[in-house]
C-alpha cells in the first residue's frame, strides 16, 4: 500500500475527485432548485417541463449520460466546452453530466422538504400579498432546504461516489488512477483498499456533518 502511495499520485487523483464533486454539487444544487421551483409553480407547462426533466435524467444511467456527452455532444454535434484541450473538455462535460444527473435527485429531495412545510405557511404568504416568486424565496424554500438537509446530503455523498463513473470518458480522478495502478501492478487487495479508504475519508466525515446539521437546522414545530 505504501508502494502505491509512493509511486503514484494518489493525492492528485483524489484532488481531481474532490474538484469534480464540489463543482458537480454546486451545479446539481442550482439545477435541482430551478427544477423544483418549476415543478412547484402554478403554471402547467412549467410543471410538465420539471416532471419531464426529473423522469428523464433520474432514469438514465449516468454511464450513458457521460458517454453521450463525449461521443454524442462533443464528437458528433461538435459542442466542446474547451476546443483546445481534450482533458479539460472531458472534465467540464463530466461536471455538467454529474450536475444534470444529480440535479434530478436534488429536485426531488427539495420537493420532499417543501412537503414538510405546513400548508398554512404558503397560505399565509399568499394572504399577505406575496407573489409566487416571493413566497418561494422568503417562505417556502428556506424552510424546505432545512427540512431536506438529510436527503440532499445523501445525494451529495452519492455524487462523490458516482464521480468515479467519469473514468469511462477518461476524466482525471481516483478511478482513472486506479485502473492505471491495476494495469501496472496487477489487481491486489491493497490497490482496492487504498482507493476504498480514500473514498471513506471523503464521505464519512461528510455524512456525520450532515447528520448533525439535519438535527440542528430542522425547523422546530
Amino acid at each position, binding site marked *: 500500500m505504501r508502494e502505491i502511495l509512493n509511486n503514484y499520485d494518489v493525492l492528485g487523483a483524489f484532488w481531481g475527485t474532490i474538484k469534480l464533486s464540489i463543482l458537480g454539487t454546486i451545479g446539481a444544487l442550482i439545477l435541482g432548485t430551478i427544477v423544483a421551483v418549476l415543478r412547484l409553480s402554478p403554471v402547467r407547462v412549467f410543471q410538465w417541463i420539471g416532471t419531464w426533466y426529473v423522469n428523464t435524467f433520474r432514469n438514465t444511467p449516468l454511464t450513458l449520460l457521460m*458517454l453521450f456527452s*463525449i*461521443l454524442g455532444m*462533443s*464528437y*458528433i454535434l461538435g459542442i466542446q466546452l474547451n476546443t483546445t*484541450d*481534450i*482533458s479539460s473538455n*472531458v472534465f467540464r462535460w463530466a461536471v455538467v453530466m454529474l450536475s444534470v444527473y444529480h440535479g434530478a435527485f436534488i429536485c426531488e429531495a427539495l420537493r420532499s422538504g417543501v412537503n414538510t412545510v405546513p400548508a398554512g405557511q404558503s397560505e399565509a404568504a399568499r394572504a399577505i400579498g406575496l407573489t409566487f416568486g416571493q413566497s418561494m424565496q422568503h417562505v417556502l424554500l428556506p424552510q424546505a432546504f432545512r427540512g431536506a438537509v438529510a436527503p440532499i446530503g445523501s445525494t451529495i455523498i452519492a455524487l462523490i461516489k458516482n464521480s468515479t463513473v467519469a*473514468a*469511462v*470518458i*477518461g476524466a482525471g480522478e481516483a478511478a*482513472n*488512477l*486506479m*485502473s*492505471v*495502478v*491495476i*494495469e*501496472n*501492478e*496487477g*489487481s*491486489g487487495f491493497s490497490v482496492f483498499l487504498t482507493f476504498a479508504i480514500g473514498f471513506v475519508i471523503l464521505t464519512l466525515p461528510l455524512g456525520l456533518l450532515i447528520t448533525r446539521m439535519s438535527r440542528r437546522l430542522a425547523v422546530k414545530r
Partner: protein
Amino acid sequence: MKVRQLSAVLAASVLTLGLAACGDSAKDGATDSGSTGSSGGKSVKIGIKFDQPGLGLKVGSDYKGFDVDVAKYVAKELGDSDITWVQSPSAQRETLLSTGQVDMIFATYSITDKRKEQVSFAGPYFIAGQDLLVRADDSSITGPDSLTGKKLCSVTGSTSAQKVKDKYPGVQLQEFGTYSECVAALVSKGVDALTTDNTILAGYASQDQYKGKLKVVGKTFSEERYGVGIKKGDTALCEKINTALKKMVDSGDWQKAVNDNLGPAGFKVDTSVNPPKPDPCS
C-alpha cells in the same frame, strides 16, 4: 433484549458467510488439483476476453478469435475435451488465476515482470506491438512521430495510454472505458487515431461494419509478448502448454489461425519475431 437479538442475528450471518467462503475455496481447491494433473479428457476452465473482435469474442453461444483458436488447440493437446470459457477482463486476470477460477488465460495477456510476481506464463504464442488505427482516407499519420497536435484515443489506464502520455506529451489523449467507444469516436472524426496492440486494432478493422473504413498504420513502437497465464509456479503445466504451442506452429495451424482471425483487414504479421519461441518455464 433487542440488542442481544440483533447481535445474535449478526453473529449467525457472519458465521454462515464464513462457512460459505470455506465451502467455496474447498470446492475450488478440489477442481484445481483435478485439472492440473489432468491429461485424460478432463474439463478445463479457460479465461478469454468476450469482447475483443479478432481475438476473443462471444458470438451467440460460440466463441471466436485468435486467442480462442490457440486455446482450443492447446486444450486438445493437453487432452482436455470439455472447455468452460470464463470471461476474464484485464483487471481481474491475476485474481482469476490465483483463486483457481480459471486454469489458463488466453486474453491478450502480455508477459511482464510485475505480473510474473503474481502468476506464471507459458508461451509467448504471439508477439504484438503498439500501433495506430486511423481512418482509411487519412494519410497524414504515418507513425508515432507524426502525431503531434493530433487527437489520440485509448482505454483508461491501459499500458498503451500510459506510453503515449510519457513518450509523446504533445499528443492529446482521449480515454474511454473500452476500445469500442474509441472506434466510434474515430469513425465520427472526433479523434484522429486509436492506439493499442496491433492485434486488437486489426480485430476492429476486420469487423464487417468498419471494413474499408479503417486501416492499421503498421509501424509498431513497442513489443507485447502474449503469454498463457497459469497459476504461479506450475512448471509442469507450462511445459505441456509450450510443447502444444510448438506443435501448433510446426503444423501450420498457428498461421491458419492468424490468417482466419486477423487477416481480413490486411494485417501483416511481423515475421521477424513471429511465430515466437516459447520462453523456458520457471
